[in-house]
């Protein structure tokens, strides 16, 4: 059953940046866009097992650091190949300066 998990402080992630967030045996990324919205997606690119923590965030997209696949952070949709599968995304909320993720 999904639960809200305290992932990080809002200032742990810079504007248009990403950090890694591990929970249990799963790995995710927390992304902050240019308008201070926060997103959570699976940590690994769907093309190959490359972690997105080193990726490039531009507005509300994240680009894989190895092969440049770009994903829409709001939906997880692939915008450019070589990835062909969308990323899983997870609901987030900000409360008391913390980012919570529903996993």
């Amino acid at each position: 059953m999904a639960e809200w998990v305290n992932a990080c402080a809002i200032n742990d992630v810079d504007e248009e940046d990403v950090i890694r967030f591990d929970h249990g045996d799963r790995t995710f990324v927390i992304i902050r866009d240019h308008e201070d919205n926060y997103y959570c997606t699976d940590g690994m690119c769907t093309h190959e097992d490359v972690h997105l923590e080193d990726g490039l965030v531009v507005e509300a997209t994240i680009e894989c650091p190895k092969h440049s696949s770009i994903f829409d952070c709001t939906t997880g949709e692939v915008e450019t190949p070589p990835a062909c599968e969308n990323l899983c995304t997870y609901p987030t909320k900000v409360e008391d300066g913390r980012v919570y993720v529903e996993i």
Partner: protein
Amino acid sequence: MPRDYSLIGPDAQRAVDAGLVTEDWYRTPIDRKQMKALMRRADQPAIRDTSILFGLMAVFAGVGIALMPSWWSLPFWLAYGVLYGSAMDSRWHECGHGTAFKTRWMNQAVYQVASFCMIRDPYCWKFSHARHHSDTIIVGRDPEVAIMRPVVALKVAANLIGVPDMISGFRLMLLHAAGRIDPEEAEYLPPMFHAKTIRTARIWVAIYALTLGAAMWFQSWVPVLLIGLPRLFGCWHMVICGWLQHGGLADNVTDHRLNCRTVYMNPVSRFIYWNMNYHVEHHMFPLVPFYRLPELHRVCAWDFPEPCHSFAEGYAEMLPALWRQRKDPDFHLRRPLPATANPYQDTPAA
């Protein structure tokens, strides 16, 4: 040890069994804020260079046409050829990575034009190049190994005038136009892209047919000097730069400092090659655009082997190694690291 470079041969499985098909390649540690600044995109440098490139191509072709049939037109056609057959390779490469321009459609537009000039299907080569970055010079996995071992000198030299590439490009284009995908390409091209590849090939065949038709109709060389032939007589610059990328260095390793080479080049070559002479840097951090590679090079210097300081120095290092690899395919160069560097990652990380 013999090598089988086929992607569907025994070395493909051997690479998997040896743990070489991995994402755990060595990366020089760089502060995240600094890395973000290095990856930041801009349109201006690529717009400037693309305007210069297409402007020069128009001028060289125009003067070449105006001076025909005089031999004085020859240098202009040769210059046009280098921009068509070599500069388009680096535009294909950088725009394929999506790093040249900040604006995505600009990358796409230049990528499509450059793919046509190089006779490289834009979809197959997108995935082929992704594989080249995943499994750089891993035998049986990397589809873009320029110099295979044991080195066959004549075969390598033939690439200087683009003959093997042109034959391969046309063979695959005609195969695609006939509605088929090569089995090796099918190894990395997802089925959802097959239809796009086939459609592209049919458009290209139509363009080449029109070009040939125009040449025959007008009884003129001009159409084929503008489209197609420069891929042969203009590719030499791409080839002499490309050989230096990995030639004579290690294969089957997971550290780009062992299998890539950085070479300082003159400004003209760097314009044509779009700074891909910073090749270790590019492979380790492929999201850094061409115009920030010199800066990345400075940031990584403490951890990288000394670059070659010129074409001549690069070839002086590489050619004897290639010569030896004709008989001893296991031989490769291993350049010393500076005292400040982290040790080489010879084997896959545990």
